[in-house]
């Protein structure tokens, strides 16, 4: 492994594996971090970075592999263990006590004690102030943590880590919610910590930041270690290629369909703080993929279109007619179906029968004189369940007992029963086995073939590339690229999803904030 090897690395993970039941989250993770350096860790969603971090933090226990700290084998059973060993993890969204003061948040559980084992508040505050001075930031140590920005909360986590004299600091996507100035400040702090001889691990999706800040960078893909290089010896293109580096299989057959009229038009849709100036359209018979990283704002855009969430500006038109904002019932009447990301919580009534779930969205039309019978529901649900090959013995089985794939089919059936013109599907195959996945894909393809417009959100790159006629890439709430089927390569999509300077529609967030 390249990199400075004068001293043995502080943190070493080799061939670490972790599974959750049948799901393999980490196949073979490796990481070697030197003291006095900042180590970047990059990979697609689901590459296993977070699992690796949680093993280091003591949240999860690894199933196998080597885990060493300062040359000694360690095995953390709790976050308290890792903390005691000098490892601090700063999460994207830190957890603080909102009711307590900033000072108390830093020292909770290990406050300096004075006479009679009473807390020495003066000493505590002095130390908090000196910590903030050392970090070069101005936060009133007396104020409550409630209302602090994410950036300030992270600074408090870092102050906590320093007061614990942590030797290893892991920052899991710390910059995701920060503005340009805040990122600069965080980086200044990170560099000064490195110069003190601490080891830092920096996880980010923004390559410019990784190359700006890190000395070495490790790439992970599908739960495996791929490579480690000094940032000086590599390039963004190389890293991107390694991150995606897999074949787009023919698992996802999109049948060509005749593309018809525009069904959905979204124009200048903006929700302050979430997404900005989003403009796109979906035509009949077309599958449009919304690609991007988790948290880029894809689901939020879809929810706003369907009317679940509010938006501040812009228009949504279905077949040329304006759709009322923040009104899902109007959206359903206008012919939109929405298969949400979390099917168990938002898509299904898991304790109800399959028939009742399928009939859920058309219930009004089934009732006779206001009375809804189970028979009417079953009769209405039957054809749809059969068509989707929902594997269930009886339609009166509860949805909770079914597999993820079958549950997803039930949700799809529910919306197909409303005979929609536009179907929005958010992560249609998450947590579904391979066989059912292919069935869902075939179904979506068939529906498009019959003239339905489909907007598909997916974090699985092969799925997007295989299924979509057009790919819209969302980064930080803006559409940064629109790629047709031929130009949508894994590299192009990843590039648009992660790199700040993209020659595409929409102004750049970072420059806007710093300007």
């Amino acid at each position, binding site marked *: 492994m390249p990199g400075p090897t004068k001293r043995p690395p502080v943190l070493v993970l080799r061939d670490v594996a972790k599974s959750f039941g049948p799901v393999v989250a980490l196949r073979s993770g490796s990481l070697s971090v030197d003291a006095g350096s900042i180590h970047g860790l990059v990979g697609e969603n689901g590459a296993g970075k977070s699992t690796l971090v949680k093993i280091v933090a003591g949240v999860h226990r690894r199933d196998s592999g080597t885990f060493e700290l300062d040359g000694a084998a360690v095995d953390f059973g*709790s976050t308290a263990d890792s903390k005691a060993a000098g490892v601090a993890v700063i999460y994207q969204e830190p957890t*603080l006590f909102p009711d307590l003061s900033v000072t108390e948040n830093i020292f909770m559980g290990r*406050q300096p004690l004075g006479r009679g084992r009473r*807390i020495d508040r003066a000493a505590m505050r002095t130390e908090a102030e000196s910590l903030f001075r050392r970090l070069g930031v*101005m936060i*009133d140590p007396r104020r409550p943590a*409630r209302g602090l920005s994410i950036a300030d909360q992270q*600074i408090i986590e870092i102050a906590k880590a320093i007061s614990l004299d942590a030797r290893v600091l892991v920052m899991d996507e710390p910059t995701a919610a920060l503005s340009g100035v805040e990122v*600069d400040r965080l980086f200044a702090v990170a560099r000064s910590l490195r110069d003190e001889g601490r080891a830092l691990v920096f996880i980010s999706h923004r390559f410019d930041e990784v190359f700006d800040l890190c000395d070495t960078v490790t790439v992970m893909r599908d739960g495996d270690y791929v490579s480690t290089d000094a940032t000086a010896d590599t390039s963004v293109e190389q890293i991107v290629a390694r991150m995606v580096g897999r074949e787009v299989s023919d698992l996802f057959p999109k049948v060509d369909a005749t593309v018809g009229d525009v069904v959905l038009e979204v124009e200048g849709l903006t929700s302050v703080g979430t997404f900005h100036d989003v403009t796109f359209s979906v035509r009949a018979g077309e599958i449009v993929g919304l690609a991007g990283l988790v948290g880029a704002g894809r689901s939020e855009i879809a929810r706003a279109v369907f009317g679940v969430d509010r938006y501040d500006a812009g228009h949504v038109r279905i077949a040329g007619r304006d759709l009322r904002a923040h009104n899902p019932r109007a959206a359903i009447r206008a012919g939109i179906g929405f298969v949400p990301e979390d099917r168990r919580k938002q898509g299904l009534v898991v304790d109800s029968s399959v028939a009742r779930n399928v009939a859920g969205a058309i219930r009004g039309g089934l009732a006779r004189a206001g009375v809804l019978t189970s028979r009417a529901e079953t009769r209405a649900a039957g054809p749809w369940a059969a068509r989707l090959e929902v594997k269930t013995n009886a339609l009166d089985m509860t949805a909770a007992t079914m597999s993820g794939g079958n549950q997803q089919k039930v949700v799809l059936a529910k919306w197909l029963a409303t005979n929609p013109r536009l179907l929005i599907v958010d992560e249609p195959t998450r947590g579904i086995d391979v066989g059912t996945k292919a069935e869902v894909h075939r179904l979506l393809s068939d529906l498009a073939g019959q003239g339905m417009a489909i907007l598909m959100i997916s974090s699985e790159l092969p799925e997007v590339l295989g299924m979509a006629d057009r790919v819209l890439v969302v980064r930080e709430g803006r559409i940064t690229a629109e790629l047709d089927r031929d130009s949508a390569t894994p590299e192009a999509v990843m590039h648009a999803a992660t790199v700040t300077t993209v020659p595409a529609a929409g102004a750049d967030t970072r420059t806007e904030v710093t300007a």
Partner: protein
Amino acid sequence: MSDTLLLEPSRASTIQRVVGGALRSREIAVAAVLVAVVAITTAKSHGFLFAGDNWRDLLVTPSILILLAVGQTVVIVTRSVDLSVGSTLGLTAYLTGRLFLDHPGIPIVAVFLAGLAFGAVLGLVNGVLVAFGRVPALVITLGTLYIYRGIFLTWAGSDRINASDMPRGFLKLGTQSLLGIPILTIIALAVLGVVGYYLYTARGGRELYAIGSDPDAAKLYGLKVTRRVLSAFVLSGALAGLAGVLYTARYGTVSSGAGYGIELQAVGAAVIGGVAIFGGSGTVWGAAIGAFLLITINRALPVVGIQDFWQRAVVGGLIIGAVVLDRLLTARQERKLVEARDKQ
């Protein structure tokens, strides 16, 4: 530019800060209401404060509720609630009488210790069920409220402890004063002082607030959540036990109705005194003043000539008002802090 990014440390002088803090303090606001109630009622009817034993009664009546409110505060701060304290009070009150009946000549100190210990055991049962049962405290302690009351009814039957069953030295505790302040009030204030001091200055006390403020964060911090919650319930039970002993000393008789419904008054006192019902903030001082206010209002309203129905409605209004006020103040504080951030 990065220098101005954050809220700067408060440049206000110490005096400004103390005065500002006092003006915003919930404790002082409730105390002001209390003083106003006493002043207005006294102005209307001079005897409210000065006739006979009224001054003494004003001080002594809230003392039992103060003990319960202090225990309740410690539990509520951890985002739980203890509804069983009324039944615990009744049970220990009866135990106190039984001890004097069955063991004539038993030292009074021993009876106090027995009451405390018995209450602590009942609290421990609550604590164990809440901490390990993973069931909300509201449900658990509602259950033990009935169970403890049931045990009390079975044990006491139609028995009734009378003043003649108890030594005079014990009963005198309920009537005697020291420097014009009733002994019971002194005991309640002493407990209040110790618990308040502990909550403010000890690690254990601060951790209770942390747990109530965000239980998940408390786990991530590596705090001993289970142990702390458990001890909060033990303390609440022990104080209810002490309140039971004092109840017997004050009233001299114990029937099966002792302490019936007082748990809701304890919760109400804490809430009125600024203890957030979702945990994480509030002080025992506030809860104690809340207890004073609750009792005093109940005594003052008939004097002013307000009907029984309205008396209860006023108490209810106070509780709802206090909770709504808490919500509004928290939301306002958060908005102000966020706005201050945006301006930077």
